[in-house]
C-alpha cells in the first residue's frame, strides 16, 4: 500500500472535519445571532435527529422512519411536565422533566423496537413509518397532552436562556450534544455490542446460528436510536420554545430522511453535513423570489436527484473524490478494496441486508 496515498486520504477525511469543528467552536464570533440560531443551531439538532437514523441504518441495517415520532415523544413529555401554555397542568422543574422525557422516548423506542424488530428491510421501514404517523395523529387528537395547537411557551432550564435574543448557550449545548453523540456512536461501533449489531446488519441468520438473540439486539439498537433522537427532541423544544404535532408530521419525518440521504445514509458525519446543507438552503431560498414558498419542491427535487445519481449522498461524493485522488497519487488500482477507515460501515446501498 502506498503510504503517501493513504496519508492524503486521511488528510482529506480529517482536514475538513477538524476545520469544521474549529469554525463551529468559535461560531458565535463569526456569525450573526440570527444565523447562529436559525441555521447553525437548527442544523445541529436536526443533525442529531438524522444521526439517530443513520446510526440505525449504517450500523444495524434498520432504516427507520419513526425517529421523528420518538423525538416528539421526548419533546412532548418534557413540554407537558413543565410550566407551559397547553398540555397537562403539571409544573415540574425543567431538568427532571427533561430526564423523564428522554426516558419516555427510550421506553417507547424499546417497545416499538420489540414489535418491529422481527421485520426486516422495507417492512421495517413501513412499520416504523406507520407508527410515526400514528404518533402524530395521537398528539393531534389528545387535547389533554397537546392537540393541534401544540404546547407553547415551554419553560426552559435557566442555562438555555432565550434562544432568540441570546442564542449562544443553546448553540453550545447543541454542539456539545452533537459531539457526544458522534463520539459515543463511533466508540460503540468498536465494542462487542457494536460489533454484534454490525453482524446483525450483515447477516442476521448467521448471527442467529452463532447464538445471538437477533430480535433482542435489534430492539436494544432501536432503543439506543431513540435515546439519540430524544436529545434532538429536547433541544428542538428549547430552540422553538414550543412543540406541536406539526413538529413531528410526515413532512418533518421526510425532512430528517432527506437530511440523512443528502449527507449520506451510511456515514455518521453525513447527518450533520446534510443538516447544514438543508438548514442553509432553507434559509437562503426563502429570500429568493423564484423559490419563495415553494421550498419543499426544491428540496424534493434535490432529494430526488441525490437518490437517483448518488445514493451515498454528499459523503459518498466526497468519498469518490478522495478515492480518485488517492488513485492518481499511487498511480495504480484502488489502494484498498473497501473504501474508508476500517471501522466504517460498508456502503451497501443496494444489497438487501443493508435495507
Amino acid at each position, binding site marked *: 500500500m502506498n503510504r503517501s496515498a493513504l496519508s492524503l486520504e486521511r488528510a482529506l477525511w480529517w482536514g475538513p472535519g477538524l476545520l469544521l469543528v474549529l469554525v463551529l467552536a468559535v461560531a458565535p464570533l463569526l456569525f450573526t445571532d440570527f444565523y447562529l440560531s436559525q441555521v447553525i443551531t437548527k442544523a445541529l439538532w436536526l443533525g442529531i435527529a438524522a444521526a439517530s437514523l443513520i446510526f440505525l441504518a449504517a450500523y444495524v441495517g434498520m432504516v427507520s422512519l419513526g425517529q421523528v415520532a420518538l423525538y416528539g415523544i421526548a419533546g412532548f413529555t418534557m413540554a407537558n411536565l413543565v410550566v407551559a401554555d397547553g398540555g397537562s397542568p403539571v409544573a415540574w422543574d425543567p431538568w427532571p422533566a427533561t430526564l423523564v422525557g428522554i426516558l419516555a422516548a427510550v421506553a417507547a423506542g424499546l417497545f416499538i423496537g420489540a414489535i*418491529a424488530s422481527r421485520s426486516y428491510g*422495507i417492512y421495517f421501514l*413501513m412499520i416504523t413509518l*406507520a407508527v410515526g404517523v400514528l404518533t402524530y395523529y395521537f398528539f393531534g387528537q389528545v387535547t389533554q397532552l397537546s392537540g393541534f395547537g401544540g404546547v407553547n411557551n415551554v419553560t426552559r432550564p435557566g442555562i438555555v436562556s432565550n434562544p432568540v435574543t441570546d442564542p449562544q448557550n443553546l448553540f453550545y449545548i447543541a454542539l456539545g450534544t452533537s459531539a457526544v453523540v458522534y463520539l459515543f456512536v463511533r466508540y460503540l461501533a468498536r465494542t462487542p455490542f457494536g460489533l454484534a449489531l454490525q453482524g446483525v446488519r450483515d447477516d442476521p441468520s448467521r448471527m442467529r446460528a452463532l447464538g445471538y438473540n437477533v430480535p433482542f439486539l435489534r430492539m436494544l439498537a432501536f432503543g439506543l436510536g431513540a435515546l439519540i433522537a430524544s436529545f434532538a427532541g429536547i433541544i428542538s423544544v428549547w430552540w422553538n420554545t414550543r412543540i406541536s404535532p406539526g413538529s413531528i408530521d*410526515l413532512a418533518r419525518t421526510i425532512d430528517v430522511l432527506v437530511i440523512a440521504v443528502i449527507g449520506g445514509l451510511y456515514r455518521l458525519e453525513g447527518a450533520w453535513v446534510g443538516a447544514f446543507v438543508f438548514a442553509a438552503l432553507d434559509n437562503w431560498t426563502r429570500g429568493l423570489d423564484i423559490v419563495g414558498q415553494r421550498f419543499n419542491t426544491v428540496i424534493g*427535487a434535490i432529494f430526488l436527484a441525490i437518490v437517483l445519481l448518488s445514493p451515498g449522498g454528499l459523503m459518498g461524493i466526497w468519498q469518490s473524490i478522495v478515492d480518485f485522488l488517492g488513485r492518481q497519487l499511487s498511480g495504480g488500482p484502488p489502494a484498498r478494496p473497501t473504501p474508508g477507515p476500517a471501522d466504517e460501515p460498508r456502503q451497501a446501498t443496494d444489497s*438487501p441486508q443493508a435495507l
Partner: protein
Amino acid sequence: MSGQTAAVAPERRSRFATVPPGTLALRAAVALVLVFVAVWVAYKAFGDPRTFVIVGLNGLTLAGLYFVVASGFTLIFGLMRVVNMAHGSLYMLAGFFALELQTRLTGGEATSAFGSSQAGLGDWIIPLVVACLAVGVIGLVMQQLFLRWNQGQELRQALITIAISIIIADQTLAHFGGIAESLAPPDSFPESVHLPFSDLTYPFFRIFVLLVAIAVGLALWAMIQRTRFGMIVRAGVDDRQMVSALGINIQLVFASAFLLGATLAGLGGVLGGTMISVDKANDTQYLLISLIVVIIGGMGSLAGAALGALALGLVDSFGDVYLPAGYTNYSILLIFGLLVLVLAVRPLGLFGRPA
C-alpha cells in the same frame, strides 16, 4: 389404556415444544384482548342496537374505501416489491383533479359540502374517469421514468417515491390551496336509503362505495385467478427472472400493474372525495391507511388487503364511539393496538408470506 396416554403425551409435548413459551404467553394475551373487545362491543351493542348498526355500517363502508386504495398499493408491492410512498399523494391528486373538473363542468354550482346535490350524473362520472386516468398515467410515468431502472433496489425506490410525494404535496398546495371541500355526488343518486327491518336510514353514497369496493375486489380476484395477465402476475410475484426467461415481456406487465395500482388510488380518491372530503392532508392519511392495511393483511395479498381494510375500518369507526366517555380522543391508540396485536403474532401480517 395407560399405554394410549403415554403415546399421546409426548406428541402433545413436541407440538408445544415448537412454540417458545414466550410466544405462547403472547398468544394467550392476544386471545384475551380479543375476547375482551368482543365482550365490550357485544355489551354496547345490546345496550343500543341502532347505534351499533349505524356505526357498523360506517365501519364497513369506510373499509370499502380503504380496500380500494390499499388494493392498488398491495398489487404494486406484490408484483414489483415497490413500496409506493406516493400512493397517498396519488389519492389526493385524484380528489383535487375531480373537484376542479366538476367545478368547471357545473360552473361552481355543485361543489357544496352540505345541502342537496346539483351535479348531474355526467358531472360526477366524467371527473371520476378523467381523474382516475390522469392519476394512473402519472403513476405510469413515475414508474417508467424513475423506478424502472432501479428494479430490486427497494429502499432506493421507496426514497424516490418519497421525493415525488414531497413535490406533489407542495405543488398541490400551490395550485389548489388548502381548503377542504367535497365532490358533489350525482343528483340521480338517492340521498339515503331505508335499511330493511328497521326505520333507520343510511346515506346511499356510502353504500355505493361499499358496492364498488366489492366489485373491485371481485374483479381483481377474477383477473388474478382467471386471466392470462393474472397468471403472469402471479408467476411474477413468485419468480420474476423465471417469467422473463420464459420470453414474457415482464416490463409490460410491470407497467400495466403500476397503471392499474395508481388508477385504483385515483378511484379511491374520487370516491373518498365524494364520501368524505378532498383535503391537502389526504396524502399522509391515506398513505398511513395503505401502510396499516397491508401491514395487517400481509404485503401483496388481496385477501389480506380486504381483511386488513375491514379490521381498520371497524376499529376506526367503533373506536370513536365505543370508548368510554372522555377517552374517545384516544381512539388512535386502538389502531396502534391493532397493529401491535397483529405484528406480535404474525410479523409478516395475517396473509403475509416471506419474500
